[in-house]
């Protein structure tokens, strides 16, 4: 009798852990998407764009408006929302970053903070202070995976992240523009000397990271809901993932994002949810103590960076 109970509880606990890991993947996928956006701008400008979280928020908000009041089908609204946020990202670069003659890293970072406040305020006026939700891309019925459940929307998120990462890798490796961006990341003056228009690359990196942010916002809104203030918190967690993975390393950002998500989820499920945010940060701090360049960052590369 006692024995069978023990077996049952053991089975129970493996399914619990599987479920917790799946939840962690859901949470982590969001961090990973935000962290990706941080990296692209960091690579071409060596600044942290603190408005990255606002791009995520704007993506979700545009999608809400396009699907809700304008009643467009999802597949039409998706590219329009991404395009709208991309244009906002480009305008942000042209109006705030581009005009600076001799920008220091610090002043650039402060400008992005100002930009995030501006975007947040703008969103508050445009959409109000309410919380919005989006319909799930497909059914809301959970999929049974072994003994755990996963929402179809999470599968969508994972699929889209996988595609974004793959496309980015191909873009950076095989296209001339992608190579130019990597050249800027490695050595900006040298890139400029061989004829790369660095300022245009910066514009492009803002466009790209705004687009990725927007995609993240659109795919997470059905699960996490969206309001004008969401950007800052998403940005903070994504920043943690970007640092953990090693700033400037997109693959590292994705892995670190999932790692933080899973650690948080396991902590909340097995220990206590009171400590889950702290545990994520403790992991981050420990990694930085042992390996200051992040999990996948190279110490040599990080020495070359200004920040």
């Amino acid at each position, binding site marked *: 009798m006692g024995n069978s109970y023990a077996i049952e509880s053991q089975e129970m606990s493996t399914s619990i852990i599987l479920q917790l890991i799946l939840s962690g993947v*859901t949470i982590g996928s969001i961090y990973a998407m935000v962290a990706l956006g941080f990296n692209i701008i960091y690579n071409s400008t060596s600044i942290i764009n603190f408005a990255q979280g606002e791009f995520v928020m704007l993506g979700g908000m545009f999608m809400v408006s396009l699907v809700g009041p304008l009643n467009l089908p999802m597949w039409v609204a998706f590219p329009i929302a991404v395009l709208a946020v991309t244009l906002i990202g480009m305008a942000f670069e042209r109006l705030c970053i581009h005009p600076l003659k001799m920008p220091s890293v610090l002043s650039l970072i402060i400008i992005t903070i100002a930009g995030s406040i501006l975007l947040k305020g703008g969103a508050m006026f445009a959409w109000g202070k309410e919380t919005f939700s989006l319909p799930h891309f497909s059914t809301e019925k959970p999929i049974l995976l072994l003994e755990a*459940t996963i929402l179809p929307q999470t599968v969508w998120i994972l699929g889209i992240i996988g595609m974004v990462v793959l496309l980015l890798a191909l873009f950076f490796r095989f296209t001339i523009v992608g190579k130019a961006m990597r050249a800027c990341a490695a050595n900006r003056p040298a890139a400029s000397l061989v004829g790369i228009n660095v300022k245009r690359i910066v514009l492009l990196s803002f466009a790209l990271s705004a687009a990725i942010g927007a995609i993240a916002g659109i795919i997470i809104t059905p*699960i996490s809901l969206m309001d004008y203030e*969401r950007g800052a918190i998403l940005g903070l967690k994504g920043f943690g993932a970007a640092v953990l993975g090693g700033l400037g390393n997109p693959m590292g950002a994705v892995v670190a994002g999932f790692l933080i998500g899973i650690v948080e*989820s396991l902590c909340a499920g097995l220990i206590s*949810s*009171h400590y889950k945010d702290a545990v994520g940060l403790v992991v981050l701090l420990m990694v930085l103590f042992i390996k200051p360049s992040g999990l996948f960052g190279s110490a040599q590369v990080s020495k070359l960076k200004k920040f």
Partner: protein
Amino acid sequence: MSKLNSKWMGLFCLSMLLLMLISGCAKEKKTYKVGAIFAITGSASWLGEPEKKTAEMIKEEINAAGGINGHLLDLIIEDTVGDETKTVNAVNKLIEKDKVLAIIGPSRSGTTMAIVPIVEKAEVPLVSCAAAEAIVSPVAERHWVFKTPQKDTDAVIRIYEHMQDKEIAKIAIITGTTGFGDQGRKQLKKYAEKMEITIVADETYGPGDTDMTPQLIKIKGTNAQAIVNWSIVPAQSIVPKNMRQLGMTIPLYQSHGFGNIKYAAAAGEAGEGIIFPAGRLLVADVLPEDHPQKTVLTEYKKAYEEKYREPVSTFGGHAYDALKLVIVALQQAGPDRAKIRDELENIKGFVGTGGIFNFSPEDHSGLTKEAFEMLTVKEGNFTLTE
């Protein structure tokens, strides 16, 4: 000579009389200044904005009807941004510069606590729109302070009473980590013992969290018969969704912080059947005709929604009650801060949006647990529980 003198004298008297008449008229027109401090912008703006709109609406109504005993109401509105320092500055300005007779607001408990010592010292009546009980207790040290929202503890008691009726004895609580959620967590734990309810799991979530399945998995592993989800941030709508995902069917109770139809909409189908305590404003339309609050609630709701084209919220209702109470006191007391305070303390049977207020020297909150009604979500709308 004497004839001339008397003629001049008569003219003089007449002009004096005229002068007195004019100045008398001017005195008649003197406005009553009342200060209003709300978190109109900032992270608590969803509280402050409906409060400000409500106060402005009442001011227009009362002045269109000829003011208070013929005195026009001059409402001086300040934005606290939900910030303690800004609130203190705003209150000092209202007291020193504007010399207001009374103040309504602020929106948040934290900002209210910051100004309690100031109004106590300056001896200015304050009617707060925030809920924390510390605002009006101990009442001996809160001579000048009143508040209109229902008490958190009454919400807890109403939830626990409902559970007792349903023979629920073991519960799990999941609370937000913001001030509202934290306060609720404390009260839930405090009253559980008194009302013979055992809390078998105690979980929390942050305002930015996107997935609560880990916490719910933990709760699922216990023998909890119901869950109380206590929060005021939008993330609370994710809990019912995750419960559904995990196939959890035990009853879900929420706090009065769920009293915004947007939150029910965000929870979608998963929100059906959620039980929560709230003021009756949310169910004004389905309230029985003979309910004492019916007229006040439907009239406020109609006026607000016609004017601002947005759904009325309970927070606006708190400002409605605060300003109306001050107006009632002003009608009786006139422009005298001490007399206004005394009148406020003696108001009995005032029908407001939050309930029926009975103030006394021992009670500056004026409401009982009866101010809460247990509501539920049915087909996407709030309705009374059977």
